[in-house]
């Protein structure tokens, strides 16, 4: 898993073509903006919902791979929707990676944002780069899910460092190239000193 804030390399590849995403936002314009970004990232299947009620009906019927929800919505807001989903018992949707987006989070609602069970919250303004980085991050997020009192969701204790695990081939190659270059540089220095 990449660390939070770690930037993606331009040459790294991502495959989101098979991902079924759902975007929930009461603003038609914001829905369209997020949809355009997802389409550019290679996502083909997208559900766009303007209300939590509409989203709930789809979540009961279809498997979703990524959920993007706006925090502030009339009637049922994003926090309530995520809390409902996590407690819904719907398999596998209850465990789906959830990114919440917010133009602003009111002071009184900060604890709700922390406790609703979302995988990550992005505050606007955010760029396409940030969105893609967070999608990759939540996809690779391997925090366990916890039930503690009213809370059901990913472990809220973030690890700052990358989680140890199998390194990707490209990363291994890059690491070996850097080691080889460092070794060559050291050898060159040693030769210079010997001369």
């Amino acid at each position, binding site marked *: 898993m990449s660390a939070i804030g770690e930037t993606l390399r331009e040459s790294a590849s991502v495959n989101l073509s098979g991902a079924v995403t759902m975007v929930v936002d009461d603003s038609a314009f914001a829905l369209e903006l997020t949809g355009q970004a997802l389409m550019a990232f290679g996502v083909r299947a997208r559900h766009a919902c303007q209300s939590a009620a509409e989203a709930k009906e789809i979540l009961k019927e279809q498997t979703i791979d990524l959920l993007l929800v706006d925090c502030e919505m009339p009637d049922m807001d994003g926090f309530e929707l995520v809390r409902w989903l996590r407690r819904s018992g719907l398999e596998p949707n209850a465990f789906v990676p959830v990114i919440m987006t917010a133009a602003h989070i009111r002071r*009184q609602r900060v604890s709700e944002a922390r406790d609703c069970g979302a995988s990550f919250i992005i505050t606007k303004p955010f760029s396409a780069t940030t969105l893609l980085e967070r999608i990759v991050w939540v996809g690779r997020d391997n925090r366990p899910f*916890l039930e*503690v*009192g009213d809370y059901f969701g990913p472990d809220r204790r973030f690890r700052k460092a990358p989680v140890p695990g199998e390194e*990707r081939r490209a990363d291994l190659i890059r690491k070996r190239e850097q080691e080889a270059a460092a070794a060559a540089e050291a050898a060159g220095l040693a030769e210079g000193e010997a001369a």
Partner: protein
Amino acid sequence: MSVITHPVRKSNLATMIGSAGGISVGTALARARANLETMREQALTVIDASITALETVPAPTGPEDMSARREQAYREATSLIDAAGPFELFDLCRAAAGLCDLIGALDPEQPFDWRIVTVHARSLRLLQTLPPEAAPERAHILESLNEVVQRKLAQTG
């Protein structure tokens, strides 16, 4: 308090992201910027409409409609941030976020100086119309707004 830990499960998304095929991050981001650029004009229209709405939200006539008017102003400011954010119109976002900070920090029953909304609406209009090279003027507007917000936030406790 008891804690139930569910075993770590790899998400479908994780499997897909790392699978063969797909596109490079560079290509994905270039496409995203191009796609979003086609929506710039629409975004500017939304921004303009939000500023107009902020300018024309009627001042509350009493405590009974204060909460509804504040909510209206808050919604317009957040919709402005929604539209301006992807196009990196950060000055507009900062000004609107200041208003949101202030409204969002208040209890519904707390008194509110409506001139704050008027000042923000005027400043947003000015920021919208100033040319990009007017950086000092923009900075001055944002600084003044920030002072107002910080002073009022201090009063709210």
